[in-house]
């Protein structure tokens, strides 16, 4: 399930402890960035929705693919394999619009990995549903207390939910997958 070609900061992903540190770092960075976006949105005098939009768009477009899964090239293998047409007969050469056969074979999930992927999505689904429920209650409470704050919080809620939905299964996979050495 973990890609063997990607080595962030030249770290091997074979050990679970390393992966857990990376996941923790990822979420710390995301939370810091979101805090910044929230602060921009909260400052009503600033009216810097453009900066807020760009910040969060950057987060959504570029940060979740670092973990992989939804996209090729991350820490987790692509969930659906590589679907581009093969352009190269040999070697592991990536081209702009295609991947080589060797890469496609390496990235294809076997049955155990597919089951693991599905199980983690079930766990993530359950967690995200509880998170959405908690946010809905908070949103309703804030709207009843101060409508303007509630509106701001609503925007942030959607953003947080989108980020969590795009990152949670990959984080769970990286967190739970056992050490590769132990398996061997």
């Amino acid at each position, binding site marked *: 399930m973990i890609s063997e070609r990607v080595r962030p900061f030249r770290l091997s992903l074979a050990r679970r402890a390393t992966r857990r540190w990376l996941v923790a770092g990822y979420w710390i960075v995301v939370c810091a960035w979101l805090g910044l976006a929230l602060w921009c949105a909260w400052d009503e005098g600033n009216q810097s*929705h*453009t900066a807020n*939009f760009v910040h969060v*768009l950057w987060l959504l477009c570029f940060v979740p693919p670092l973990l992989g899964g939804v996209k090729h090239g991350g820490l987790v293998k692509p*969930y659906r394999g590589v679907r581009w047409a093969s352009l190269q007969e040999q070697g592991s050469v990536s081209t702009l619009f295609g991947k080589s056969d060797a890469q496609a074979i390496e990235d294809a999930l076997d049955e155990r990995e597919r089951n693991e992927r599905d199980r983690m*999505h079930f766990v993530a*689904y359950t967690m995200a549903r509880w998170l959405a429920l908690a946010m809905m209650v908070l949103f309703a409470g804030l709207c009843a207390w101060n409508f303007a704050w509630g509106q701001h919080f609503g925007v942030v809620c959607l953003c947080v939910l989108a980020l969590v939905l*795009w990152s949670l299964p990959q984080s769970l996979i990286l967190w739970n997958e056992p050490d590769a050495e132990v398996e061997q």
Partner: protein
Amino acid sequence: MRAELVFLGRRVSMASRRRRRTIVVSMYALLVALLTAGWLMDRWRMTGVYFLIYGALFANYFFLGGNAPHGLVKPFNGKAPKPQAIPSSVLELKLRSYAAMPDEDEKNYSNDERELEQRDRAHYRAYHLLATCIVLLWAVQHFYLYVPNALRVLPVSVELLVNGGLLICMVLSLTLPQSILLWSEPDMQEEQGDARAAKGK
């Protein structure tokens, strides 16, 4: 998945996939009707929650299961229902929708390995659809903040659009995995027949 549904005191066979698909289509048709009624009444301000969310919970409880001990799909968490000799609510008593006898057979609520795989696969499919919907809603909302005038061509306000989209997402999050399971599971008689044929050989 269970092969029969107890509703209004009657046991209805749901072994055929066609019947299960009919239930899924009818349920979503009813939810769309409620959505339309809510829009006409108060633009989903109050009816959105009361009609749609309670409608989805009702469908879960009586027909779909998964998140509830009753219904066609076994509980996703595999936990046994609490012992309930007498129906706890008047509604259950009146509708006679409760289990006719205490459910002591583990296979009626516990998922085997194949069912767990199907449960996880259904959640995987539902997850990606919902995640895409949420990102689209977020994009619409943020685009509206960025360029408020650009979306004035829409016949409804953006707040209502996002509110409706979120309501639909919530309903889907409650019902979609079960619906995928009910829709895709093959006829049960055929499976049993195949098993018998395999044993005969």
